[in-house]
């Protein structure tokens, strides 16, 4: 039977199955292959909090969404073209994500009575058999049976054979989208080099899946997504947490400092630790502390000693670090605090995304405790922004918050990576050694930016004491003097405000400088807002988009920009936080637009809001 190839610009696939089905791995492998091919892409893994929730249940469904295209894209897709489901629960949980007319590839073995029951389908209802899916193109493949058949002579046990199912699916999808298997085969060879039997089995199943597409008569159409016309240059694929890790190493190299990373494992920040622990060849010191407080404590010690010290956590852990952040601020030493936000409050939704820690970063400490805050807006931007957080921390001798969230931390996109030389240098200013007879060292003497010098132990003549008690200006001695306290509080605030002189002015990302509607975002909502605003502008709507990376201090011209618009909408994955800051600081009638579902905005949701606002 002849097969046809349909050329298409933009495809979104959602792989879904049990969290033990290897869905994330199949998705990542397909992503890497499609990245190497040269598509623009964006991914969104979505997994349950439990490592292995009960098999076959709705709670155990893990998903990996990938959008790839020959055009420039900014989000992992609002709605899917292809849904791959390993069992009934995966179908039930994700069907609403599939467009009408979309393709379902279902592992029929996952729709036996037991799985249907676990997915809470009524008795004797099988969606694959009852025509309820007639709006879609359904392809049933008995992946389990075909995998077993393919490996019957492998000598592997049933469990091991079962574990290669994801490779069958991956092989099939590679066929369906006209991609070759080389990259995946190389990956399997590398991963299982110590276990040749498992390596062979995985490769065999992958190929079986691929050839199944070729020979099976049910599939007549393959899809071709041409290379994307991105800016010229060399690209790689990158995930947000990976970009943050690399950004920290780059900042250490460009500042000449040793990177010290003290942290306690927490979802979704832990992958940065995993990544950095591998880079001992860069002299990176990772320290897995006994708790969140010890984690930041260790970084305060390391920073006092002259290291580029970084701690990371998510909301609950940041709450525990609050007192210590205040100490770092009093000591006026550099420190980067990474918050990979997740759904809150309390334990909240550990594996789901949210932007609800902005006010915590800005205000969540005792006393007058201003801390600079920067936020990344996409996976690759985590590199640039964490580097910038390090620069501000070191050059302004202050703790700095770097905000990311589960969505961009685990999401990936192509990255036109820089060369080492093109990165700015970060200038640490250490206090010089002193000789006998020199004037006594004054630890809280400041430069014109109000920044004190880094006076590290081991430097002759700089012996001095610092601490959390209010300090006398210049000398750093304990002081309870009322005027001194007010002076120091204002000085520390001014020092942070002064950072506004060293950051870029706010740009309009898209649209006119003045007009009817400005969409103001921060962090990971960038892609959805960008896509929505671009579409609305094409359709003739008077709308612009500004995305704030520097949340404290805010860019100097932000007020001017805001005053140029009749309406301001602030979409956030929280109950309205940046909007409060803007209203407070600029007295503008900014309106919140919130989504608090542990899921990112779709471009369509924002577009709808734009249209609704402008039609009033």
């Amino acid at each position, binding site marked *: 039977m002849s097969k046809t190839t349909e050329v298409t610009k933009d495809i979104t696939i959602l792989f879904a199955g049990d969290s033990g089905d290897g869905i994330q791995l199949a998705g990542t492998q397909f992503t890497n292959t499609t990245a190497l091919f040269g598509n623009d892409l964006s991914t969104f893994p979505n997994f349950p909090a439990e490592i292995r929730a009960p098999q076959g249940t709705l709670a155990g469904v893990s998903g990996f969404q990938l959008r790839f295209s020959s055009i420039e894209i900014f989000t992992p897709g609002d709605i899917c073209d292809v849904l791959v489901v390993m069992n009934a629960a995966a179908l039930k949980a994700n069907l609403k994500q599939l467009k009408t007319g979309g393709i379902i590839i279902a592992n029929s073995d996952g729709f036996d009575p037991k799985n249907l029951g676990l997915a809470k389908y009524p008795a004797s209802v099988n969606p694959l058999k009852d025509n309820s899916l007639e709006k879609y193109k359904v392809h049933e493949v008995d992946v389990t049976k075909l995998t077993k058949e393919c490996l019957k002579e492998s000598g592997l046990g049933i469990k091991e054979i079962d574990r290669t199912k994801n490779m069958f699916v991956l092989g099939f999808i590679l066929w369906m989208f006209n991609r070759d298997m080389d990259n995946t085969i190389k990956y399997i060879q590398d991963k299982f080099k110590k276990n040749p039997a498992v390596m062979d089995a995985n490769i065999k199943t992958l190929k079986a899946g691929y050839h199944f597409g070729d020979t099976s008569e049910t599939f007549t159409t393959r899809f071709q997504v041409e290379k994307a016309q991105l*800016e010229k240059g060399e690209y*790689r694929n990158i995930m947000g947490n990976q970009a943050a890790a690399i950004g920290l190493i780059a900042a250490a190299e460009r500042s000449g400092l040793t990177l010290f990373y003290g942290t306690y494992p927490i979802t979704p920040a832990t992958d940065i630790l995993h990544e950095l622990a591998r880079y001992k060849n860069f002299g990176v010191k990772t320290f897995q502390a006994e708790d969140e407080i010890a984690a930041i*404590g*260790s970084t305060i*010690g390391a920073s006092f000693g002259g290291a580029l010290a970084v701690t990371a956590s998510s909301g609950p852990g940041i709450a525990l670090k609050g007192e210590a952040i205040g100490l770092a601020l009093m000591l006026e030493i550099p420190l980067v605090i990474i918050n990979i936000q997740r759904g809150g409050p309390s334990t909240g939704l550990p594996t789901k995304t949210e932007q609800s820690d902005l006010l915590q970063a800005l205000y969540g400490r005792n006393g007058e405790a201003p801390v600079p805050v920067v936020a990344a807006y996409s996976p690759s931007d985590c590199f640039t922004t964490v580097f910038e957080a390090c620069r501000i921390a070191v050059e302004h001798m202050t703790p700095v918050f770097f905000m990311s969230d589960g969505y961009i931390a685990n999401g990936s996109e192509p990255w036109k990576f820089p060369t080492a030389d093109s990165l700015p240098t970060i200038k640490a200013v250490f206090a010089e050694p002193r000789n006998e007879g020199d004037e006594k060292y004054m630890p809280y003497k400041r430069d014109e930016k109000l920044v004190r010098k880094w006076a590290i132990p*081991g430097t002759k003549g700089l012996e001095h004491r610092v601490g959390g008690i209010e300090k006398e200006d210049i000398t750093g001695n304990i002081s309870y003097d009322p005027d001194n306290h007010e002076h120091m509080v204002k000085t520390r605030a001014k020092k942070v405000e002064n950072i506004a002189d060293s950051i870029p002015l706010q740009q309009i990302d898209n649209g006119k400088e003045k007009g009817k509607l400005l969409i103001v975002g921060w962090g990971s909502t960038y892609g959805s807002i960008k896509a929505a605003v671009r579409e609305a502008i094409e359709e003739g709507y008077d709308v612009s988009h500004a995305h704030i990376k520097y949340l404290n201090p805010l860019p100097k011209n932000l007020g001017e920009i805001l005053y140029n618009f009749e309406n301001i909408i602030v979409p956030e994955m929280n109950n309205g936080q940046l909007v409060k800051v803007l209203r407070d600081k600029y007295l503008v009638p900014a309106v919140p637009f919130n989504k608090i579902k542990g899921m990112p905005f779709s471009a369509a949701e924002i577009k709808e809001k734009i249209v609704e606002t402008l039609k009033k």
Partner: protein
Amino acid sequence: MSETIEKPYTAKDLETDQDVRWCPGCGDYSILKQVQKVVPELGIKRENLVFVSGIGCSSRFPYYMETFGMHSIHGRATAIASGLKAARPELSVWIVTGDGDALSIGGNHLIHILRKNFNVNILLFNNQIYGLTKGQYSPASEEGKITKSSPMGSIDHPFNPLALCLGADSTFIARTMDRDPTHLREVIKRANDHKGTSMVEIYQNCNVFNDGAFFIYTDKETKAVETLFLEQGKPLIFGEGKTKGIKLDGFKPVIVDLTDGTAASDLWIHDETDRVKAGLLSRFFDNPSTEGHLPRPFGVFYTEARYCYEDALVDQITTTIAKSGKGDLNKLLKGGNTWTIA
């Protein structure tokens, strides 16, 4: 520490220009003085000395030492010192803490620094009371203690600090007291010589909120009978005129009268490297008012040679670099798989 110092410094050079603000008569004065006296003998460059403290009366200590110092936050000095030592293994790092700071709010960090075994010295000033907050019972206060927060007597069972530390696999534990300056200095020297986390419990009198808590061990009349000074390789002997000894009956320590003809060679011989015996010694913790109680030991209970965290951390880095070379940032930025858009 065998490094040579260009210009030696004296106790006087370790005094700061700040007024010492502990209550007159506080045991902390004596400890400060002995530390200032002994540190110049240790051969450490002054600029390499760092004193880190938490919160509490004792934690004001760094302000009075002309070295690098950090008066940090409650309970966290151990965590901060860990990071400092990991980043700068060549520094001489000292933690000054109290029974509330180390055993209550900072209990978690204490046990973890002990097991990780950073090469730092911990001076735990134990006065068995919360002094800075004006006299509440601490986790080291005895049962039934009447304080402002326990008017009917404390119902908290106290920690036995050294037994706790031994349980956390501490590689050096010792006890000394504010009122025995010579012993205090000797123990501090030993703590500094030990490579690993050295835990020194110092009985310290709070003359305002818990006056006399340790007088039984420091007063002339009772000191000889109530204290047992440990010396490596020597039998456990104590009492007026050194007339009493401790013998082991199986695992049970028994007090014997040496005037009865018991030979010193039959006694328990102190061996700092014996973990089991150290465990027994740490349990010499009876309330001195109980009949037939054992004397309270002072000196070095236990030492063990175990790798230090910071050395192993540096070692992993140097091994990696020796094996695969120094990291190349361009390679890192590029990653494994790239594609070019022309």
